C-alpha cells in the first residue's frame, strides 16, 4: 500500500474508500518508459509488469500505469490504444514545479529532452519535455496566478 496526502486528505493505492486518480499511458516499451520516469523524475517503480501486466509507478501525488497498446476489450468494445501522434495532442501530464530552472537543469542532466528552455508566458514560466514515446510533459512554475 502506498499513500499520499492532498488537501489534508490521504489517498492510497489501492484505495480503501472513494477513489484515487492514476494516469494511464500507452507505451511502446514498458521497461524503457518505467526506467525513464524513475531516472528522470524519481518515480518509484512498484512493478515492471513482468511481461504480461502493466507497470505501476508512484510519481509524486499520482500513480502511473504503463502498458503496450491493443484492444478492443469487452469493456471498451470500439477503442484501440496506441502510442501518440507527437504533434497532435489532446491531454498530457502537467508538472507544476516550485523552481523551474532547477528542475530544467536536473531533469536535463538525467536525460530529459526539453523542446525549449523555460519561457515566460501567461503568468507562468513554462517548457515542455518529450518522453520516450513522444508524449509531452508540461513543466510550469506560476508567477502570478493563484492556481497556476
Amino acid at each position: 500500500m502506498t499513500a499520499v496526502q492532498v488537501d489534508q486528505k490521504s489517498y492510497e493505492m489501492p484505495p480503501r474508500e472513494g477513489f484515487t486518480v492514476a494516469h494511464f499511458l500507452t507505451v511502446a516499451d514498458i521497461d524503457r518508459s518505467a526506467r525513464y520516469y524513475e531516472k528522470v523524475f524519481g518515480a518509484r517503480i512498484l512493478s515492471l509488469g513482468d511481461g504480461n501486466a502493466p507497470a505501476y509507478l508512484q510519481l509524486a501525488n499520482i500513480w502511473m500505469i504503463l502498458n503496450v497498446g491493443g484492444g478492443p476489450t469487452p469493456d471498451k468494445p470500439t477503442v484501440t490504444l496506441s502510442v501518440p501522434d507527437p504533434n497532435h495532442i489532446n491531454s498530457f501530464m502537467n508538472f507544476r514545479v516550485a523552481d523551474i530552472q532547477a528542475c530544467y537543469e536536473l531533469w536535463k542532466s538525467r536525460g530529459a529532452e526539453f523542446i525549449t528552455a523555460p519561457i515566460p508566458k501567461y503568468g507562468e514560466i513554462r517548457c515542455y519535455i518529450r518522453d520516450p514515446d513522444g508524449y509531452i510533459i508540461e513543466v510550469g512554475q506560476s508567477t502570478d496566478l493563484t492556481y497556476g
Partner: protein
Amino acid sequence: MSSEQIEQKSYEMPPRDGFTVTHFITVADIDRSADFYEKIFGGRILSRGDSKGASGHILIANTWLIVNVGGGPTPDKPEIILETPPDLNRLNSFLNLRVADIWACYKEWGDKGAFFLTEPLPNSDGWEWRGYMRDPDGYLIEVGQYTQLAIDWFNKHS
C-alpha cells in the same frame, strides 16, 4: 492499517517544493468540463479560466485537472497543436480512477448523468473489475476496482 502509511508526503498547488503532477485536457468548453468533473466526481472548481487564455483548475481527489481550449503552436512548443480528441476510438492516455467500490461508483456517477460504455466487467486476468466512461469531450475515463488478489500484490510491493 495506519502502520502501513509509511511515507505520507503532502502535495500542494502551487507547490512550495519539488513538483505536483496534474492532468491537462484540451476541451471545447471550459465551463462545461469544470461542471462535469464537479458534479460527477465531487471535484472542487478552483478557477474557471478567463478569456485571456487562463486555464480552469479543478481539484479532483489526489490531483488537479487543468482544462483549456485548443490552440497553438506556442513559442515553447513550436510544432504542437492542442485539440480535442479527433477520434474517440483511438486513444493514447487517459485518467484512470481506481475506486474502492466500483458498483457504488457506477450507480452514483450514472445517476448523476455519467455515460458508461458498459457496466463493470471482470477483467480476464482476475486482477480487477473495470468500466469506462466518456467525459463531455469524449475523453475515456477508466474506472477500476482491484480484486483481493491485486490488493495482496500491492501490499507486497509497496
